[in-house]
């Protein structure tokens, strides 16, 4: 009985908490995200100069009507590179966690539902992946595979699998003991039906909240690799490589490093804020499911 009272209390407190959580900052984050997505999608349609055309006479030009954010060390338009860089960050940052979400989520649900030897194998093999510091593994594999956006996305995706597996497994473990699953089993539902119709809709919520946090981490790792010159191959612009190139001219034109740095910080912060808000709303421990 005590548990019932507890859950009732939390449900009563729920609307108030939800209202307070979606504050001004949350909407700022949403606004920035919409802006970044919009320019990334419309990058080719927007009236911008080419991000790769060099103009050696206009190296590191200041802000002007022609080049709104000036030009970089090769005389390329900074604003255009920033917009096209957003595209790379979002492509890698969104698709890599999709790989982690699908494979890790599926493995975690299967492991949490069937338990037994399958679970031990899955958890054990994830432990091996986790035995490598993530950035080291990413660097090593890129070194052998060669630099390309596709490789980068795949590597960062695989690196995300263990974390998604853990989230999905933890959620499945608690859900699999709930009444509606037991009822479905009693009605003679197949394993596939229970997994897809009963468990998946419930596991998906925490997984999606975690997905946003994973996007933030992926954007940071992609940025770090590109910053070291080991991410996306030049002349493609990425925020990380722009910051890396801007580092060379910190004394004469610090804006070349700081403009992409601010863009990246705001984007990562936005994903973290929105992800954290959603995670707080969907955390099963707080009775919000």
């Amino acid at each position: 009985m005590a548990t019932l009272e507890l859950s009732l209390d939390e449900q009563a407190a729920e609307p108030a908490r939800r209202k307070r959580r979606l504050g001004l900052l949350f909407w700022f984050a949403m606004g920035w995200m919409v802006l970044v997505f919009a320019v990334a999608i419309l990058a080719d349609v927007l009236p911008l100069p080419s991000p790769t055309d060099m103009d050696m006479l206009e190296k590191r030009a200041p802000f002007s009507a022609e080049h709104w954010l000036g030009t970089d060390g090769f005389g390329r338009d900074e604003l255009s590179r920033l917009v096209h860089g957003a595209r790379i960050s979002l492509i890698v940052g969104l698709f890599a966690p999709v790989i982690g979400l699908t494979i890790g989520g599926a493995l975690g649900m299967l492991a949490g539902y069937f338990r037994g030897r399958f679970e031990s194998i899955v958890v054990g093999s994830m432990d091996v992946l986790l035995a490598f510091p993530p950035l080291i593994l990413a660097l090593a594999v890129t070194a052998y595979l060669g630099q390309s956006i596709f490789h980068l996305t795949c590597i960062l995706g695989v690196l995300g699998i263990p974390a998604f597996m853990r989230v999905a497994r933890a959620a499945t473990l608690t859900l699999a003991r709930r009444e509606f699953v037991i009822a479905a089993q009693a009605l003679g539902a197949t394993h596939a039906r229970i997994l897809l119709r009963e468990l998946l809709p419930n596991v998906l919520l925490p997984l999606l909240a975690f997905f946003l946090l994973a996007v933030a981490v992926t954007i940071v790792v992609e940025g770090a690799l590109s910053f070291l010159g080991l991410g996306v191959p030049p002349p493609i612009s990425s925020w990380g490589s722009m910051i890396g190139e801007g580092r060379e001219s910190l004394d004469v034109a610090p804006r070349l490093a700081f403009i992409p740095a601010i863009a990246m910080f705001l984007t990562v912060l936005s994903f973290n804020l929105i992800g954290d808000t959603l995670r707080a709303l969907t955390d099963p421990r707080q009775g919000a499911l």
Partner: protein
Amino acid sequence: MAFFLAWRLLYLVPVLIAVSVLTFLIASLLPGDLAYVILGDQATPENVAALRHDMGLDQPIWWRYLSWLGHILQGDFGRSFRTGQTVLQAVTERVPVSFELMILAELIGLAIGVPLAIACAAKSGSAFDRFMTGSAFAMLSLPTFLSAILLIFLFAVELRWLPATGYVPFTEDPLANLRFMVLPALTLALAEWPGIMRVLRSDMIAALQEDYIALAKAKGLKPSRILFVHALKPSSLTLVTITGINIGRLIGGTVIVESVFALPGIGRLLVGAIYTRDLIILQGVVLLVAAGFVIVNFIVDLLYAALDPRIRHGHA
């Protein structure tokens, strides 16, 4: 405790073997044959075939793995074909730099994070608490390479207080060594303190609501004594856990920081090996770092068990 130790040690062996297999597979199955890389421009099909034979690359893969592992167990990690240095030499030369950097960073991180956590927990919900929790959250979104750039710009370019790049060994000139180490260590610490503060803060807030704290208050103990002795002591466990969890990110962070500040540590060795396609060094360093990481995690587990009796009695 002896049983717990034996049980954890038994688990360590298969993980280390799996790590070695994965490192070997990454290096062998992916494109970019070693023979082509070594020969470079002089690679003719005959040259490549001859070198592959010399290096045993034409043997079946399981045989190559076993002979590689055999050499490693005898302490032979191979030799760079660019510099002639053995992997072990290169790593032992650079390990002190990375260790010093990581220890300094963790110390600075703790020095910032712990007092802030205590201050926030003592007045949880206050304006100061909310401001610091918010800042910590924002700092978590600041990647290491961004804070590195920011610190270089502030302290090396604008104020000219500290050097942006360079290194002097500690044994030669401790003061100069610290001057070169401050900015890199601070960069890493900026990524460390938010995690330390957030976890320790919520841990202490929970501890402050326990019955024994109420008892201590009822006994009329000084608030500072309650805060530091009664509430902070049980949270020392949490600090061990956070430090353990942070090590993976800290290692990744040193790779970036050593590259930015030109410190001759393991991270720079690794990145340099990738730039020059020095695959033997790369393979050896990845294996050693991963093995070291596994062993450090193992030690953290043991430390955790030594501090908390519940874990070694079967709750693990």
